[in-house]
């Protein structure tokens, strides 16, 4: 018998949702079989069996589970495991199943925030969604302030009992096993799963309430956390990029493997080299101490291929890779992230991030730091401008870059020097193609 626990798929993931079970409880599975599609805050992953045996599903699709929480078991042998363990799994199954026939395709639809656009004309979909949305999402948070024994917590999770609604009969009001059993047995679960918000929504027809995807909810939380806890300031520089633009064209035309090199790849290389020179930028402020990171891993903020969201695939050890390697690897990691099938590490471990909105014609902007990183570089579009050079006006290409800085980690002078270095490297792009 082996437990399958909700895997931790990214740095920021706290819980995940089974989008779809590909196998049924009681079905024989083999190691390597895809059991389910799991949605984290960032992407959707395939969950594979790590052993042969009989599958027993503990968490039904659509129900969020904390990372590390058991979501299924693979039992040895045939029916024994399934029958023995069936009882506890019945409870959550009973709640989820009746809803499925009503809206079979909604599972896939639900993680796409695009529904927002078409929704205003339709009344039905939001209601359906609320029906599907598991209310006890809030319960684990409430649960932290509740006194409940570990056994009671486990049983509550297995039985789908919301601990917040249980009165504890143990010492000091602790919720104990008996309380959960009593609560689980006495109330029909379907009732509890109806969120109160459903009523509010109908009361305000002018506003459509759209459930965020897990990714969007995480972004909301993390960005608010960043803005409220990180004292940040910005430094902007403008770089001449005529040489970089022509070098890029040269590489694309004449170097095998560099056909798809982008200006962002140049920036990854430039930032990696600059970070090596300024280790204080490649750092974090954690528990009142500086953490200097040995690896230089650069996150690239990109939009997902569908829907509204944000992915930050990571080029690891960027300072040890040449421009061509960075170009190939960044393209691969972005593709994997956008396909919702990232490899391990693809979405985690960044020590510095770059957000480039140049392709959308944005002149300049400021990006929000993604803690625990200390800085993020926001890159604008390359523009043709008139430049005064030696007293004469000449045509030139410029690009504005704005660094957002966590002032706890490093200060204005360092930020200025770091940006001067990035500027120097990008203005002298030959420095980016020589081996480091």
């Amino acid at each position, binding site marked *: 018998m082996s437990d399958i626990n909700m895997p931790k798929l990214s740095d920021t993931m706290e819980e995940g949702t089974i989008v779809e079970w590909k196998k049924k409880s009681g079905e024989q599975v083999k190691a390597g079989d895809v059991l389910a599609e799991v949605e984290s805050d960032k992407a959707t992953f395939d969950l594979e069996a790590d052993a042969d045996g009989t599958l027993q599903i503990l968490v039904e699709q659509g129900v969020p589970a904390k990372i590390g929480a058991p979501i299924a078991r693979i039992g040895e042998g045939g029916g024994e495991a399934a029958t023995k363990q069936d009882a506890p799994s019945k409870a959550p199954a009973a709640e989820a199943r009746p809803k499925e026939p009503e809206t079979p395709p909604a599972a896939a639809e639900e993680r796409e925030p695009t529904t927002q656009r078409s929704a205003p004309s339709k009344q039905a979909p939001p209601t359906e969604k609320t029906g599907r949305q598991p209310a006890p999402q809030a319960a684990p948070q409430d649960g932290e302030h509740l006194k409940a*024994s*570990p*056994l009671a917590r486990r049983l509550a999770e297995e039985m789908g009992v919301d601990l917040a609604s249980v009165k504890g009969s143990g010492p000091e009001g602790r919720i104990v096993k008996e309380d959960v059993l009593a609560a689980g047995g006495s109330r029909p679960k379907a009732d509890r799963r109806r969120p109160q918000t459903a009523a509010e929504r109908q009361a305000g027809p002018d506003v459509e309430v759209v459930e965020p995807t897990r990714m969007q909810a995480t972004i909301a939380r993390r960005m608010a956390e960043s803005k409220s806890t990180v004292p940040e300031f910005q430094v902007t520089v403008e770089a001449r990029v005529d040489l970089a633009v022509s070098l890029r064209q040269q590489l694309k035309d004449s170097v095998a493997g560099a056909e798809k090199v982008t200006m962002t790849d140049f920036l990854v290389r430039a930032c990696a080299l600059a970070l090596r020179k300024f280790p204080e930028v490649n750092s974090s402020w954690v528990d009142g101490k500086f953490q200097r990171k040995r690896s230089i891993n650069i996150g690239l903020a990109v939009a997902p291929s569908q829907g509204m969201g944000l992915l930050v695939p990571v080029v690891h050890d960027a300072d040890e890779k040449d421009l061509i390697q960075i170009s190939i690897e960044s393209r691969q990691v972005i593709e994997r992230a956008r396909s919702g099938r990232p490899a391990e590490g693809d979405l985690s471990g960044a020590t510095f991030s770059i957000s480039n909105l140049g392709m959308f014609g944005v002149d300049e902007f400021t990006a929000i730091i993604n803690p625990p990183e200390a800085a993020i570089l926001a890159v604008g579009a390359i523009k043709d401008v008139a430049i005064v050079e030696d007293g004469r006006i000449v045509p030139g290409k410029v690009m504005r870059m704005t660094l957002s800085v966590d002032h706890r980690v490093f200060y204005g002078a360092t930020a200025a020097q770091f940006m001067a270095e990035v500027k120097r490297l990008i203005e002298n792009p030959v420095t980016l193609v020589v081996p480091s």
Partner: protein
Amino acid sequence: MATATREQQKAPAAAEEKLYRVALREALTEEMDRDDTVYLIGEDIGKFGGAYRVTEGLLDRFGPQRVVDAPIAEEVIVGTAIGSAMLGLRPVVEMMTINFSLVAYDQIVNNAAKIRYMFGGEVKVPMVIRMPGGAGHQLSAQHSHSLEVLYGLIPGLLVVAPTTPEDAKGMLKSAIRGDNPVMFLESMSLYNVRGMVPAGDYTTPLGKAALRREGSDVTVVGVSRMAVLANEAAKQLEEDDIDAEVIDLRSIRPIDWQPIVDSVRKTSRCVVVEEGWSTYGVTAEVVAGVQERCFDYLDAPVRRLGGAQVPMPYNQGLERASIPTAEDIKRLVRATLGKKVD
């Protein structure tokens, strides 16, 4: 399971009721008869017959070569035993009390426990140190403590505490036959306890806990004499409709986790009791291990009970108040179950 249990080895002959001290004496006698390399050394164990009369009559039977009356010098006694064990004998040391073994602590910890490791296994130290512990006899602060945890700390030692005459005999035989140093902890208050002892030659494996009583509401793990008190408490708790399971730890090093874990997973509650100080004590170790292994099964905090945090008082009333009683165990069990505590 590779280790044979006592049940499998028990001779068909009828068991007989015997005193704990007599069961120990039988084990020593039978092992000395069986194996010439077994000898005894300690203070007053020969002519006087032992402070607790465990070795009574053995000097006459085996002579002064094999029943050695030693000077009052515990470090010398244990050092002699270690040296002779390294050279092929099987000494059984009697310390008058575990409290005196502190004089020999360096020999036990730095030599007995480590020599087999430090010599790459080339020599072994097959020896037993028997020592009574525990309070209740107005022997005051330097003679009354239960210091088993001091040996439970030390890798290289086996530390056991039998609580019944049957185990006393069977485990002492296993200890003598083993090739590693065994701290064999007896309880002063158990020497006059009677219990059925199987006839004939049998051994009881070391390193195994014993389930003394089945129950469904709470697991009470007792160390040494506290396992006996836990059993008494469990019987009395029946009146309160509390069904307590009792485990006699028997082995302090290593701890036999399986029966404890199985039991706590069944009952979801656990109380651990020792006579010694529970802070940094044997109970502390058991509690830590239980929560690591049973966290998701626990319905209440795992509780420990031990002796008062004072040097043992001489005054009889104060002494009684300083060691756990069956009443104390009952109170803690009730509290763990969320029952009203009087």
